[in-house]
């Protein structure tokens, strides 16, 4: 009996509607959190695992020594490597490919690499327009390395003390 009266009064005076409007009103004057992507970016953790890259040493020499540990550890079998002896006698890959459709961005490849060659950069804004572009070749990956080296280094430095 009492319940029925309370419900009647609530709907008569639109109390629930006003309560909802009050929330709206409160947020109307609050500081806004919407990020205007792509004009603006959310902050990223230095551990963010995005597009892969193969790094080089400061003298320009590729780091990768074709040890194939990343290939072995990759749970998605996304990495394919072929290797041979380069003219100068060093061990190098002749083919290094990552299939980004297979990759699950787990970062295991990066963890396994003994020379910090394969890394996952914080770059995540990439698209493929044609089938086949999802296979990152060695030259693509080295290009990413050159392009993002500053970021890669900064991210690794920021994370260094937790490792």
């Amino acid at each position, binding site marked *: 009996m009492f319940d029925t009266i309370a419900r009647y009064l609530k709907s008569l005076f639109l109390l629930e509607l006003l309560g909802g409007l009050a929330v709206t009103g409160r947020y109307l004057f609050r500081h806004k959190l919407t990020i205007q992507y792509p004009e603006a970016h959310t902050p990223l953790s230095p551990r963010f695992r995005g597009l892969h890259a193969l790094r080089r040493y400061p003298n320009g020499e590729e780091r990768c020594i074709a*040890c194939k540990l990343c290939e072995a550890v990759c749970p998605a079998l996304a990495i394919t490597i*072929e290797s041979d002896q380069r003219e100068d006698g060093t061990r190098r890959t002749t083919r290094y490919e990552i299939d980004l459709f297979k990759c699950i961005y787990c970062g295991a490849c990066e963890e396994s690499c003994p*020379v910090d060659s394969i890394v996952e950069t914080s770059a995540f804004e990439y698209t493929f327009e044609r089938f086949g572009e999802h296979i990152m070749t060695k030259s693509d990956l080295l290009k990413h390395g050159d392009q993002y080296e500053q970021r890669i280094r900064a991210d690794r430095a920021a994370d260094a003390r937790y490792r």
Partner: protein
Amino acid sequence: MLNIQINGVDVQVKHGTAIIDAAAESGIVIPRFCYHKKLSTVASCRMCLVEVEKMPKAMPACATPVAEGMKIHTKSPKALNAQRGVLEFLLINHPLDCPVCDQGGDCPLQEASLGFGGGVSHYDFDKRVLHNPDFGPLVATDMMRCILCTRCIRFSREIAGVDDISTAGRGENIRIASQTGHPLTSELSGNLIDLCPVGALTSKPARFTGRPWEYQHRSALGPHDSFGSHLQLDVRGTKVMRVVARECEEINETWLSDRDRFSYQGLYSADRLTTPRIREKGIWREVDWSTALEFVANGLQQVRKTHGAPALGALVAPTATLEESYLIQKLIRTAGSPHIDHRLRQRDFSDQAHDPVFPWLGGAITALEQKTAFLVVGSYLRKEHPLVNHRLRKAVLRGAHAMFLDAVDRAYNYPTSVSMVVPPSAWERSLLAVAKAAHAITGRAIPTGLDALWESIECEAIHRTTAEHLVNAASAVLLLGNVAHAHPRFGALRNLANAVAELTGASVGYLPEGAGTVGAWLTGCVPHRGPGGKTVTVGQDWHTMVTGGVKGLLILGAELERDCADPSAALKGLHQAAFVVSLSPWVSPAQEAYAHALLPIAPYAETSGTYLNLEGRWQSFQGVVAPLGETRPAWKVLRVLGNLMDLSGFDYFSSDQVLAEAREAIGEVTPNNAMPCVVPAAISSETPALERFGEVPPYAQDALVRRASALQATPDGRVPIAARMHSATLAGCGLIEGAQVSVRQGEGVVRLPIIVDDRVAKGCVFVPSASVETAALGPVVGGAVTVVAV
């Protein structure tokens, strides 16, 4: 039997067993580096230390024989502590470059570190730095990784029988170095790769191309000599990445010849034939299989129609599998022709009626070790049959007499008692002299007519010694090698060998040339015998076939410009034949010139099949990778060809079916080399002033090994194409070393440089065969030549 206790478990082991083996019998692993069951024990690495009760210190398990009541602990704190300490010491100078090391993933040092190591090192000084010696094109060296177990040194001394490598320097500077400054020369040197427990010695052809964990291990058989070695092919995807030995105590023990180990490279040579090709009006066209097979079937039928069925013939390389041999002889015989042959490097067939049902070694391979004397006739045994030589070497080290009748004084890896170095035309006389001397000793019954032959023969001291050794031996054997088979009077030679055997009590053994030779004999790939040695209409031998007897030829796996005993005659004949089909995994310029159709067939590793080895052991193998391109297994090609030619009995679904049928056709065969000695009517009276000697160089034996680039880069693969002569012969001709000469044999002339080689018999001109440059010359062994300066 002794009663001992290992880790608290009572076991019984044989007297004299080392602890390490006793433990292995009960499934207990003791880490080791220097110990290897086939090598002498030096106990230098100390990795195998175990605790033995009542002994004050930990003992090396590899060098401590068990004793009654011994109580051994392999997992006690004392043992583990000792092992951990040793490992830390071993790793002091080890570079820890596993990521770039080819041994990584397959490395006893990695495994021992993981299982028995401590994980930390107390050593933080500089590591020793070493240069890498050049060990040739087969073995890559990374000496920084060496842990000085000396397995490699012991192998080269004890097994390979060459003193190629040793330690140099002392203390911290001690290292493995090439003693001679030259690359390794042994035909077994690749075994160092299997033996080295770390990545110090690795395979050069496979360097940096793969990782052990990506390989699938598949088994195969050695495709070259007739030894039947067990191989393990390491396969990735559709490619053979490397070959290692598979243990088989009765055959190859744990070893492999370099030829079997590295020839896989030839599978991927640039001249692999991957699409069928046909030649119409002189133009080669790549076509699909059905077109090609129809073309071939029509071509053969055409020949059959115009010239009659016996105008067809087939030549089979000694590398063909038993199934292939069986099918091709069935195809030819069902088509109505008796002409089939595989003895492409043989020239004298006069005595073929007395051939044993299949020529074989005459006993088990292991029995070779028990021989107390052997006479090898016409073979560079060490290179032709490396592992036969290895077994015989063991016999020699136990005191057996090694004797050779050859045209070149070879360098063997054991002491030889007798080395008769005479030109091939004198081999008969030498054997006769040995027979005569043997008769003088034993007085055994002379085979009829032999005394008339040896009347004019003088026995020299060397013949008497040979006879003595053979007579006095508890177990002696005469072995006929590849060159003997190519001898222009093989029949007489073989009978004289039989006579020597009869007079001395020795046995006769044959060294079949190729992996498929025995199979080809048994399946009836010879013109005078059917499967299992059955009587058939006698057809023509290969020489008669190619020199005009046959109009339509099927060639299986052979490149006749190199793979026969008389290439110039063969090429001439082939160019005149009406229709030549070459079934081959590779294509050579000469084939393109003489063939009308080229059908790509699968080489070993890509086909299944069966090989019989020289002791008559049946061994089957599977194809381990997909055939390259459009290549198909030869048995399938032959099967379809049989169907297209409307021949009955060619409906097989698998090679097993072919094998079963072949087995049935062959039936029970008892090998027997002891054929009656048919004394030749006369021995060769021909003694040319200069005589050709042209064996097949070690790595030119068959199409596959000729394409293995690393083997070709070794000294044995780079046999100079030159005329080699004794300095006395050279002086007699008024020539000087290095001069260009033209060598004429019959109608063939080639220009070659001269090399002085006092190992070559006087009166001989050594011109290697199986090479395109010398193909223009005549028969490869024997035959007069003239050498004139140009």
